[in-house]
């Protein structure tokens, strides 16, 4: 285990110990009929995809697991990537809540018989933070959290996304995690909901989980650049229209990356439009900086269409331009997404495109479960 993991692990352990020991008893006992009984560790009935919940403790334990199979240009066809993430959420009184996500991933040989075909398992503290609900419209978050740029980065877990692969526009140009403080909430603007996030990152000094952020998932080898923040400041707004069927978002972040250490400004837009017959989503980013080599821009549009019960056909087109190397990548992705029961997702995906050095063409599949 890398020495870089020690500090985040300590933070994660502190969060977990606090959660399990019960820093304070939850005050919102959720079953009035048991109010006088000592059943404080009596869990609520378990449902797949909702975690194990102890109402009287204000404690929820859950997570997700997935196995990715891939056969891509330049990769070993018999390899797979396995991820397991564990979530722990703990209410502290009426205003505070602790959350942590511990994740481990490992590239292994599918057959298992060869023994030694895989890489080393890594344990990362993906997220660890404390939320303080200051007012109905403001929650303050302290710790390591997902960078609020676009929708995908905030809900990137395999069981929650339509496809196995992740668009470059959702990770390549910025760090997926930030460490510092954030304010977020929902306010009404002209009778409609506006979600907002404003954050300040100081990863250089807080140094939480520096090993985790690859610029993109590199199935053919560990060659993707690490793009952790040194410092960042920014925010996002998401405006809901027509109920929640249409949401339009915009992001702006100014930051300095660890490698290469330049100053950048990134602007992003995103949308989600859900109808009975199709769900359309899209995100785009435009990054600039002092150096001409800082420029990156790209975006994708994705459609999910229900074809029979619990089975969806997915199509996505992405275009992404990088300055180093100077190239424009175009990726077309077609996929099937099957959700037989809540919490369980099976995916099969084919992608191809032009200039596939970053995104090799081929097949991907995954089985994932939210537990």
């Amino acid at each position, binding site marked *: 285990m890398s020495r870089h993991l020690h500090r985040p692990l300590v933070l994660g352990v502190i969060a977990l110990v606090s959660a399990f020991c019960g820093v304070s008893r939850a005050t919102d006992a959720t079953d*009035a009929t048991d109010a006088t009984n000592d059943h404080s560790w009596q869990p609520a009935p378990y449902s797949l995809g909702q975690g194990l919940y102890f109402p009287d403790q204000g404690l929820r334990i859950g997570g997700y697991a997935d196995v990715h199979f891939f056969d891509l240009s330049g990769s070993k066809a018999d390899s797979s990537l396995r991820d397991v993430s564990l*979530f722990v959420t703990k209410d502290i009184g009426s205003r505070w809540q602790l959350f942590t996500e511990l994740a481990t991933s490992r590239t292994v040989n599918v057959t298992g018989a060869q023994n030694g075909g895989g890489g080393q398992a890594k344990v990362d503290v993906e997220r660890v933070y404390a939320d303080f609900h200051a*007012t109905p419209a403001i929650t303050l978050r302290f710790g390591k959290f997902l960078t609020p740029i676009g929708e995908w980065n905030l809900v990137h877990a395999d069981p929650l996304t339509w496809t196995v692969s992740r668009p470059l526009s959702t990770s390549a140009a910025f760090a997926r995690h930030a460490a510092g403080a954030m304010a977020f909430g929902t306010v009404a603007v002209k009778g409609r909901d506006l979600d907002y996030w404003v954050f300040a990152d100081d990863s250089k000094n807080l140094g939480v989980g520096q090993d985790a952020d690859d610029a993109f998932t590199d199935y053919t080898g560990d060659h993707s650049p690490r793009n952790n923040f040194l410092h960042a400041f920014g925010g996002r707004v998401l405006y809901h229209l027509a109920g929640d069927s249409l949401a339009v978002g915009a992001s702006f972040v100014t930051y300095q990356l660890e490698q290469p250490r330049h100053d950048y400004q990134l602007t992003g837009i995103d949308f989600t439009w859900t109808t009975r017959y199709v769900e359309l989503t899209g995100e785009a980013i435009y990054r600039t900086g002092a150096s001409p080599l800082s420029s990156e821009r790209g975006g994708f549009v994705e459609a999910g269409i229900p074809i029979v019960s619990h089975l969806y056909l997915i199509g996505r087109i992405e275009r992404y331009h990088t300055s180093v190397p100077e190239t424009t990548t175009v990726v077309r992705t077609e996929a099937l997404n099957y959700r037989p029961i809540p919490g369980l997702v099976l995916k099969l995906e084919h992608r191809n495109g032009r200039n596939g050095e970053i995104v090799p063409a081929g097949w991907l599949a995954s089985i994932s479960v939210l537990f």
Partner: protein
Amino acid sequence: MPVYRHIARLSLFGLVFAGPVTWAAQVQVAVITAPAAPRLAFDKDTLRNVYLKRIFVDGDGVKLAPVNLPADSPLRGIFTRVILHMSEQPLQDYWDKQYFQGVSPPYVLASDEAVVRFIAVTPGAVGYVASCHVDTSVHIVMLLPLPAGTAESGLCADHTGAP
């Protein structure tokens, strides 16, 4: 919202003192809280955000605890359509994503009576029941008319004294 509260009080007064036949004909969805109601401007948008867990505390910092009826409850179906404006699958997707953020869906209680008992003793709790189940232990903050064509008799079938 004062107007809502005024209407709610008048409606509760009418429900309590009206005869059983009249009462059955006026069943509505009653949104209830503990007698000391949370300091929130209760309108449909606010109620929606409470139930979607976009609002966590009231103006005094009291934690809000929305509760649901079981998934197969007709009243829950009505409430979901009228207030949340979401069908089953989008709502499931929404809670899956919230779960990833550490936010849990509203806790589920088994019956209207259980909701009333829980709400009556829990500051910050918010629930909904058929108005025929409301008693003086809780405070009505909003009344929602039933959609046309709703079978009212089923909503009050397990209530003592209901026709």
